[in-house]
């Protein structure tokens, strides 16, 4: 029903002997905002560069708007907006000069008024040179340049890294504005899970190059939960419940982190384990993400000495 605008199949990338991206399978449908999350160094930028044909995959394939990523034609590239990591633009150019440069590549697509309005909204002048802009201002300019050609597919690589809350909000507004136009799709990577929660339809989680989650945001948020159980004597040593991620033990209690376990299953297990009481706790997206991508032997880094 919905056309797939971004597709990868077993996408893999080795840097020498280091595995950066490990057999990623993605299918992003048209019309959604997809949040790409992962810890630092998880492989998000590598994956994005592979999708845009800036890197060549070691194995697997990637397709954007139906076209193979290693052979993206100029016509296809014209339909794809790309906000690069760090918003790196030509430092010696003025905003107006860069606008002229950009316009040459978009012919009828470029929305002059929209760009001018955005620059005015950001309180910038077209005469300013890129090198004289602060990081935040450069990000704003970068956003304006990405949105003015009205792209079908907008890919943003960590666009709000290091930026203040106001500018982050402007990026979200830009994304919402774009998605409301017919048939647009947005893929953005971010560390700010609050932003992802706010605007995303779908979430993709990458951890150490491996795809850990690829579903609607609602499914992800419903799937990861915590169950707190209390026991009369001591908690059972073994936890053999479906979807078990990890647990934290206290004297007479157990805090379980679970993925995809139904409430009924939890109730059943609690009963069979002899729990006195249990409750299922809601988690916010940030906690869910942290628990989901925590290492297998989930321990705290610091432990205070008891005196």
């Amino acid at each position, binding site marked *: 029903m919905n056309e797939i605008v971004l597709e990868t199949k077993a996408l893999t990338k080795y840097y020498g002997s280091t595995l950066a991206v490990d057999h990623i399978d993605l299918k992003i449908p048209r019309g959604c905002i997809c949040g790409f999350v992962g810890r630092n160094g998880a492989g998000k930028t590598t994956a994005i*560069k592979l999708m*845009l044909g*800036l*890197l*060549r995959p070691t194995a697997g394939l990637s397709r954007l708007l139906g076209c193979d990523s290693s052979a993206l034609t*100029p*016509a296809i*590239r*014209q339909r*794809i907006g*790309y906000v*690069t*990591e*760090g918003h*790196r*633009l*030509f*430092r*010696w*150019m003025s905003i107006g000069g860069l606008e*002229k*440069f950009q316009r*040459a*590549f*978009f*012919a009828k697509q470029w929305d002059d008024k929209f760009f001018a309005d955005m620059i005015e909204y950001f309180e910038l002048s077209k005469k300013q040179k890129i090198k004289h802009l602060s990081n935040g201002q450069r990000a704003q300019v970068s956003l304006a340049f990405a949105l003015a050609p009205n792209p079908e597919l907008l890919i943003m690589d960590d666009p709000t890294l290091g930026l203040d809350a106001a500018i982050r909000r402007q990026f979200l507004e830009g994304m919402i504005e774009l998605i409301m136009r017919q048939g647009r799709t947005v893929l953005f990577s971010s560390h700010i899970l609050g932003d992802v929660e706010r605007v995303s339809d779908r979430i993709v989680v990458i951890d150490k190059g491996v795809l850990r989650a690829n579903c609607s945001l609602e499914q992800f948020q419903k799937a990861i939960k915590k169950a707190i159980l209390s026991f009369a004597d001591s908690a059972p040593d073994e936890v053999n419940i479906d979807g078990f991620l990890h647990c934290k033990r206290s004297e007479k209690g157990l805090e379980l982190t679970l993925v995809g376990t139904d409430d009924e299953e939890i109730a059943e297990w609690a009963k069979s384990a002899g729990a006195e009481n249990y409750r299922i706790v809601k988690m916010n997206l940030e906690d869910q993400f942290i628990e989901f991508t925590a290492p297998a032997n989930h321990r705290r880094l610091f432990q205070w000495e008891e005196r």
Partner: protein
Amino acid sequence: MRFSALLRKELRECLPWLLLAAIVLLVFGGFFLRAETYYESDRHYSRLSAGTVVDHYQLTFYPTLNLTGPWLFCLSIGLGLVLGIRQFWIPHFTRTWPFLLHRSVSRKTILTAKLTAALVACVISLGPVWIGLYWYANRPEVFAIPQTPRVFIEGWIFIMLGLVAYLGTALSGLSTANWYTTKIFGLVLATIIIVTTLSQCTLAGIFAVIAVSIAILLVQIFDTFLRREY
């Protein structure tokens, strides 16, 4: 329209170096030219009378422009190095490759724009000044003996060697080799070509070496640029 936008951008980036090279050649080239006029007569007449046979082609701007010539050579190589660095090394540091490469043009077009800009820059910055210096040197009141066409051609040979230096620098800049010894392959190759050119016996030999080496360098550059990862 897209190519001209790229070309304009590349030329604008070369502009300061282009102007600097032209001005330096004009000022210092002119200075050396004036200096040489004082020594010209002694040197020339004594050589001719000795009847020595020049057994190989020497790019020494004999009988005149002995200082101006080498100065043009240095500037040309220098300009080539700087342009190569500006177009192919600097984008790595400013991290602007991803932005440029995502423009809606083929990679070939991007590279062609860069090469065209460098060619134009080398030719129009040093070419007119060289023509001017040669013309001035040819005027009867400057040197008693008129300049030979050979001297004029030699100037252009030096400008072409500047392009060789540019291509070598470009190739080095594009190299994905990690270790610095292999990365400078392009520069080493350019140096070898230049030395080979300067030691040729005939004018035909010189042009052959330059033509073949530019062709080889261009093929390598295109291949590397199109395949490379950013």
